[in-house]
């Protein structure tokens, strides 16, 4: 009932299926068409679907994302790639004002069914300006939805859910996951969709809850192995998958089960998804907590380039293990 696909191929399959399903779905961004995508997510789609459905844009993120927003109000369903999510900084007004507010300011008369997608992560040696982690940044704006798949199956399921959603959805992928392989449901079972707002327990455990999203989930799973093998600590790993909407029930359930929490988040520590999740836990599961909620975030500085040390700035199994051990 399933096959092995890379995260990249799973995303592509999702895009391809949605292009087939709805003629109003249109893909654009820098180098997504003729070049096949800077990270090859869109490989082959221009060839298959042609220049009307899949096309390249100049380096004008504010311009082309705004163009997509405008077109979406008329019923077109643009799926736009940011070559790096970090380039949100030059399109921020379009992303947080026009996309997030046009429905509200028009009293519900306009809507904006767009998807913006691309990699949002550190760890690739591209330095501070190219390594932003903007999940919490955008989830802070009511009107927007944000998700961040960690596995190929979730990548396909979430991109399809995002495209079908009638609100603006920002899909945060990860360069370091594109090549990862995993099981993805077979085509015969029909549309594989992962609804926004539904977290997923990626590993069952009883002692400590590790709550994360995106690549940090993979880091948590690795840390959980070490903690079990070397320390006999059984971690539950909850993958948020979707940041807004957020699966608060799943968060509270795991906390009520384990009573101890470490939040893992590639964000810088001032804020981030983890600060929000922590706030919700202490508010709604205060009495279930046996210890303060702890976090593992990126070390609080702009992203360093040096490949010798960059991985130490990010959450990694070593840092997660050490943090969990402080709870014991």
């Amino acid at each position, binding site marked *: 009932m399933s096959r092995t696909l890379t995260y990249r191929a799973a995303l592509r399959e999702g895009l391809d299926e949605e292009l087939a399903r709805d003629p109003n779905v249109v893909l654009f961004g820098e180098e997504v068409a003729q070049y096949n995508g800077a990270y090859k997510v869109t490989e082959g789609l221009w060839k298959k679907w042609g220049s009307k459905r899949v096309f390249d844009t100049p380096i004008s993120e504010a311009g082309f994302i705004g*163009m997509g927003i405008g*077109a979406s109000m008329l*019923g077109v369903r643009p799926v736009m790639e940011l070559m790096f999510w970090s380039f949100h900084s030059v399109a921020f007004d379009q992303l947080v004002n026009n996309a997030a507010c046009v429905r509200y*300011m028009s009293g519900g008369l306009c*809507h904006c069914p767009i998807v913006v997608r691309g990699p949002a992560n550190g760890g690739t040696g591209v330095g501070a300006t190219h390594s932003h982690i903007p999940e919490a940044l955008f989830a802070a704006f009511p009107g927007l939805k944000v998700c961040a798949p960690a596995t190929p199956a979730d990548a396909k399921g979430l991109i399809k859910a995002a495209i079908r959603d009638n609100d603006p959805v920002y899909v945060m992928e990860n360069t370091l996951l594109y090549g990862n392989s995993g099981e993805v449901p077979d085509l015969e079972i029909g549309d594989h969709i992962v609804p926004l707002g539904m977290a997923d327990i990626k590993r069952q455990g009883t002692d400590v809850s590790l709550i994360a999203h995106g690549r940090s989930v993979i880091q948590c799973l690795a840390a959980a192995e070490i903690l079990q093998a070397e320390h006999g600590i059984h971690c539950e790993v909850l993958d948020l998958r979707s940041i807004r909407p957020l699966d608060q029930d799943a968060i509270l359930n795991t906390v009520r089960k384990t009573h101890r929490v470490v939040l893992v988040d590639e964000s810088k520590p001032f804020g981030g998804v983890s600060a929000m999740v922590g706030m919700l836990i202490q508010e709604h599961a205060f009495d279930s907590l046996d210890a303060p909620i702890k976090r593992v975030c990126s070390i609080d500085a702009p992203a360093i380039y040096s490949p010798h040390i960059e991985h130490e700035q990010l959450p990694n199994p070593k840092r997660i293990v050490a943090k969990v051990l402080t709870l014991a």
Partner: protein
Amino acid sequence: MSSVPPPALDFATSAINQSLSSSQKIGLFTLMVRIRRFEQAALKYYNAGKMGGFLHLYIGQEAVAVGTISLAGPNDHFITAYRDHGHALAVGMGMNECMAEMFGKQSGCSKGKGGSMHFFAPDKNFWGGHGIVAGQTPLGLGLAFGLKYLEREGCCLCYLGDGAVNQGTFHESLNLSGLFEIPVVFVIENNGYSMGTSQERSSAYSGCLAQRAEAYGIEWDVIDGSDVYEVRAKTHIAMERARKQHKPTLLEIDTYRYYGHSVADANAKKYRTPEEIENYKQNHDPITLLRRRLITDGLLTEASADAIHLAAAEEAAAAVKFADESPIPTLADISTDVYWESDHQTPASKIGRHFFND
């Protein structure tokens, strides 16, 4: 701001204007008058404390919205900045929902959520009303892109101010429109000032602002915005170019605002001389000019013109009454119109937490 000498050409004789019936010509006049009267009423009740935020009056610029939008076919769309009352009435929105919007009422066109800067009527192809300077320009590009994508023969008129040309997004939009052959007409409503800053103090240019299109290989033109016939004649060419050839145009329409940047602008008479304001009112007022012309042409009399003013004033007064008597939004209204899925109570809206009020 008009630095254009009185028109040498008589644009009334151009085909697009000769095709107007008498009642259509009177309609143009009536619409301009209605816009002005609507805003005069708005000003009065803004000053009486009935509205919040800003009130950016369009008075003096009426021929621009009326002239351009009078050319609209079923697939032509419109989007503008915060100085949006003229465009709203020109596309056919009612005074009631517009006035009620400014009064912050549930019956407002945007349910009282947008205010004066954010009028919308998608059913009339009007997409706002936008507060961030030039932020609407890529949206206008996108509406036009959408028309082409959906294979509808039409165009989008996207308005911006003379100060807005210095936002980067506008240039990105120009380049994209030229490159992708998008049926958009960008209309710079050049009233000479961005708040208290004159064109000379905000823009580097040689000749005019519209010339910025040239290096993009985009057609451009400059229009005297006090003459509704000229506005129509020249804008028509641009709209046809968009509709038929999918080619963008950048128009610069010289005009003037009589009041300050917004009603809160205490300096309106400091950065402009009284003579400058008076000169425009006396010699370039689009309503006065059209009135004179229609009377000369025998389409109006002094009395019938006055009657149009009176009716518009009464309509505005009725709109004030409507607005004043309409119910205010409730606390619950704050939380609707955020997400389409939530408003439509779809299955997707039931999964996960969407709102984080504690």
